[in-house]
């Protein structure tokens, strides 16, 4: 028998170590030290109910355990085999105590649909994929369904594009299916480029066949016989596994002519990106696949009308495709039962930043940010205060404490001034300056703008310059008005989605953290203490012992003072490198 004690960061903070000790002591006292082991584990993703203790092998789950509960657990459960009722998890929906973790599904925040095979199967072995119902969906499509049936199922499932704006996938397929052409293309957008997003890569590395199968299903639905995966050249492992998967699928005849004995033929090739974020935009992606500069063109015409080689093309991203086979297998009713009214199913997020459990998570639409950050994510690193979470990458915005309980779906995120984007979710704490964060994203946009249209090419550069100006303490209140106007115009006039969303990080931080902008321009102060130019290092008279360590360490000789006497920092010379702060053993250097 094992007693698992959650050693996740937030449980640890609430005395999980003490609980483990108490349990061990109780077991020793009862002479069970050798038979029952106490093991610390990683986070259970239930931090709000922590600390948690799990009893193995019967999977009983205790929540909000205190060190003094150890005696009861050992005496009642370990010795008598009777669960301690008062410590059991209470199902919030019916108020019943739940004993086994098998019945506790409802409190697990994650459901894995797109990631269903990631971490389970060997991605380089097609048999393992097939063992988990792989290629059953395309089999079902070609034998049981018409193309219109398939489109109908996807439409009714409510699946929306996971790549950004959330366009209904079924509708997209329908449009492509209606455009007549002897040749059509299914394109998988695997040019995942948001800084901080890696869900597509994980799917391709962990479950490449699900994408291949879905592309074939799409091909069947829209009447295309050719698929292309546009993938970042920076993803060598994903490319390798895709190539293996394509080869295996061809060997089994699951790609190629007359799939599973039907009239339907479909094959897939790879095309490589070469490091241009804008190629995530579908018209740019298509130009890039044609060997050209990845510059977007005005829509309409949409790719469904005129795409790759001028032929009707349907572009979806990796995660969207990965959700498709399950929908066919388990039915649209099942899929649409998950999620919110307008956003069905689950969404994969790459949870990163100042959070304890950095990871790839898949959650049902409608979950709150609070659940993601404080339960699945295990809360903020180093016990700092939560400040904001950035979603949607360079196209998205920052959400704050006020949004913690907003159910997450496509529309709510947009209403809150951000967007789903591809699913990067970067958590920030009190040390992060929101002006600098905005600047960081704009620097990215400036770097990645294709340069075709003037507002994006020049305007974003001007925003970036103004933000830099502000973080250096040279901004004025009037600059903030100008900043907002520039942002609005760039959104309003840019040619493609990149420019139309690039000011979002600025606008959303201005909306949510205006006080920080104002502090930068009027008080010349960075509240988070991160803008170097706005820092001021001073020496606290009472604490300085005159050891000269700071003066010796100053690279620009900005510190003067005799030995054993108070030292002084010349603000004009100071380059704010922080060397004095680090060297002072007496905490006599003050940063403000």
């Amino acid at each position, binding site marked *: 028998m094992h007693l698992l004690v959650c050693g996740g960061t937030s449980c640890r903070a609430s005395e999980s170590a003490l609980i483990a000790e108490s349990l061990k002591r109780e077991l020793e006292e009862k002479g069970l030290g050798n038979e029952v082991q106490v093991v610390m584990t990683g986070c259970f993703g239930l931090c709000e109910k922590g600390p948690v203790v799990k009893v193995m092998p019967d999977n009983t789950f205790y929540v909000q355990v205190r060190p003094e509960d150890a005696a009861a657990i050992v005496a009642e459960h370990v010795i008598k085999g009777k669960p301690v009722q008062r410590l059991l998890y209470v199902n919030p929906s019916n108020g019943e105590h739940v004993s086994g973790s098998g019945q506790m599904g409802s409190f697990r925040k994650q459901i894995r649909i797109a990631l269903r095979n990631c971490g389970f199967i060997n991605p380089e072995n097609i048999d393992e994929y097939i063992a988990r119902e792989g290629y059953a969906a395309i089999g079902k499509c070609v034998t049981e369904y018409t193309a219109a049936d398939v489109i109908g199922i996807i439409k009714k499932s409510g699946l929306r594009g996971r790549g950004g704006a959330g366009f209904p996938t079924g509708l997209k397929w329908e449009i492509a299916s209606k455009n007549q052409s002897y040749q059509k293309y299914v394109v998988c957008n695997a040019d995942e480029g948001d800084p901080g997003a890696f869900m597509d890569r994980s799917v391709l590395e962990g479950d490449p066949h699900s994408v291949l199968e879905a592309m074939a299903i799409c091909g069947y639905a829209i009447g295309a016989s050719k698929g292309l995966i546009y993938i970042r050249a920076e993803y060598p492992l994903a490319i390798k596994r895709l190539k293996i998967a394509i080869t295996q699928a061809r060997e089994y005849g699951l790609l190629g002519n007359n799939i599973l004995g039907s009239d339907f033929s479909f094959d897939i090739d790879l095309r490589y990106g070469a490091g241009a974020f804008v190629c995530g935009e579908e018209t740019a992606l298509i130009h890039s696949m044609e060997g050209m500069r990845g510059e977007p063109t*005005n829509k309409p015409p949409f790719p469904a009308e005129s795409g790759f080689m001028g032929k009707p093309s349907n572009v979806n991203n990796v995660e969207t495709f990965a959700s498709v086979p399950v929908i066919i297998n388990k039915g649209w009713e099942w899929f649409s039962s998950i999620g919110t009214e307008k956003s069905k199913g689950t969404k994969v997020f790459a949870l990163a930043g100042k959070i304890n459990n950095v990871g790839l998570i898949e959650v049902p639409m409608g979950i709150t940010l609070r659940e993601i950050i404080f339960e699945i994510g295990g809360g903020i690193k180093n016990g700092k205060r939560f400040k904001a979470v950035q979603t949607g990458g360079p196209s998205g915005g920052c959400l704050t404490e006020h949004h913690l309980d907003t159910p997450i779906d496509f529309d709510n995120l947009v209403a809150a001034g951000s967007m789903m984007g591809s699913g990067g979710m970067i958590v920030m704490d009190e040390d992060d300056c929101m002006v600098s964060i905005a600047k960081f994203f704009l620097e990215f946009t400036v770097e*990645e703008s294709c*340069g075709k249209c*003037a507002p994006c090419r020049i305007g974003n550069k001007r925003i970036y310059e103004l933000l830099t100006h502000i973080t250096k303490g040279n901004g004025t209140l009037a600059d903030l008005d100008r900043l907002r106007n520039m942002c609005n115009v760039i959104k*309003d006039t*840019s040619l493609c989605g990149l420019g139309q969303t690039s000011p979002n990080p600025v606008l959303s931080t201005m909306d949510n953290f205006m006080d920080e902008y104002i502090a930068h321009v009027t008080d010349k102060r960075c509240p988070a203490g991160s803008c170097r130019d706005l820092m001021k290092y001073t020496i606290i008279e009472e604490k300085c012992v005159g050891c000269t360590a700071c003066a010796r360490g100053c690279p620009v000789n900005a510190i003067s003072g005799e030995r054993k006497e108070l030292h002084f920092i010349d603000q004009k010379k100071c380059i704010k490198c922080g060397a004095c702060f680090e060297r002072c053993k007496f905490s006599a250097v003050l940063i403000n």
Partner: protein
Amino acid sequence: MRGRMTMETIKLTIDNKQIEVEKGTTILSAARRMGIDIPTLCHMKLEDLNIENKPGGCRICVVEVQGRRNLSPACITKCDEGAVVRTHTPRVMNARRTVMEFILSDHPKDCLICPKSGNCDLQDMAIRLGIREIPGQEIAEMSTYRKDTSPSIIRDPDKCIMCRRCEMMCNEVQTVGALSAVNRGFMAVVAPAFEQNLEYSPCTYCGQCVAVCPTGALTEVDHTGDVLRAIADPSKTVVVQTAPAVRAALGEEFGMKPGTLVTGKLVSALKELGFDYVFDTDFAADLTIMEEGTELLTRLGKFLNGDRDANIPILTSCCPGWVNFFEHNFPDLKDVPSTAKSPQQMFGAIAKSYFAEKINVSRKDMVVVSIMPCLAKKYESQRPEFSVDGNPDVDFSISTRELAHFIRQANIDFNNLPDADFDRPLGESTGAGVIFGNTGGVIEAAVRTAYELFTGKKLSRLDFDELRGMEGVRQATIDFDGFPLNIGIAHGLGNARKLLDEVRAGRSKFHAIEVMACPGGCIGGGGQPLHHGDSSILKARARAIYEEDKNKPIRVSHENPYIIQLYKEFLGEPNAEKAHHLLHTYYFDKKAKIIVKQ
């Protein structure tokens, strides 16, 4: 052409006014039809020439379309049924102004000394939008690049606004491929490969990039200073020749209606400027017809005798941009074009030999200046094979635009100048020489002469309408008294490429092909007054050229008395030894070559 059928139409409202347009019409053209002049910067459309630039990049033409989240660019947004469009709401005006401020924030402010000043689309737009300041300019970095001067064209990429017109002309219309958008984002700019000089690119110096550039990013090399110094030098006899297309366009620079012929004033102005002899390139055009026509008939004779190596079709060779083009792209066909020099170079060769002897001036004391609608002529005049002991046959070639500047600088009131006549002997020309300025003109002039020489009969008509027009590729069969002569005509190098590909493949059915590098021919040359995207200007010039032809007493080259005299006194027979030496040339293989190192 499609038959007349009922077009599907669309009704929409622009600025509270209803309009019905054909399906597929853009908001921009619908609005313009209603007299609503939505401003544009990158967009350019040359009607009837099938040339359109519409990257939707500048975003100046944005308008508000009810129900759309963002503003829409009028130039590429098609009208929707029932759409409600507004072109001057506060939102639109603010966006347009802010975008313009962005563009100007990355553009040098040296307008006062910019070669484009006063003739710049960007400047006009700044004036139109009433831009008075550029907020944030003091912290705005500007994108800067190396400048480049070639024999014909100056590039100042700092002034590039990425309208992509030059790139479109160079790649889509001309298929030259010297220019491309390079780099990304803020540093994106149009440039030759490796941002090297045009000299190291396949540039033909056709100057169409310059002709469409809305700013001072692409301009011609200015040789007026050299000309001024030559005129001022008492030891030099300065001879000027002026190309046919110049007289049909120069007036525009002085506010005259496009299509106004200013031949007489042009001659007066050149005399006022102090040129010693004012001659006409049309004379040399007549000479070209003598040589090229003879060459055509010789080759045709061989061809009709079954000689498969007779190099039929013959290709015209008067256009230097075209010559550059085939040297780069079709060096394998370099025996196919006529070996006749261009009129400019024939003129130079004759001026510095026949005429210099006549007036007893040594070659080195004579300066030949040409006024050309063309920038490639600058390069052509500098080709080493067109010089004798380092002394070029044509010393300086200046464009129509440069001449206009020159006239203004010399305090000449052009509009009130009296008409004057060209000097003789090299100023006398026929209608055949004049029409060299239009696409199809060279071949028409050649037909007029070749017909009479081939058949020994007089032509009953001199106007060959079947050879005229603005279609990019045209063909006609002329009855040479029972022999059907198949003629092909291309203007624009992309069109020429189509015909040349056929020649290369041995599929061409033509006996003679005329090629002009510039759309419309020389009247649309890279050195002409800027058309600013208005193709009606080109058509007016073309009409003027044909009008000049009609008014000429002699309209066939071989009847030009001074040409007859030239052969009698000096050259002997067309294509004979002396003529060959002075008036013919040879071509080079200029395709990029890979040299294998061992």
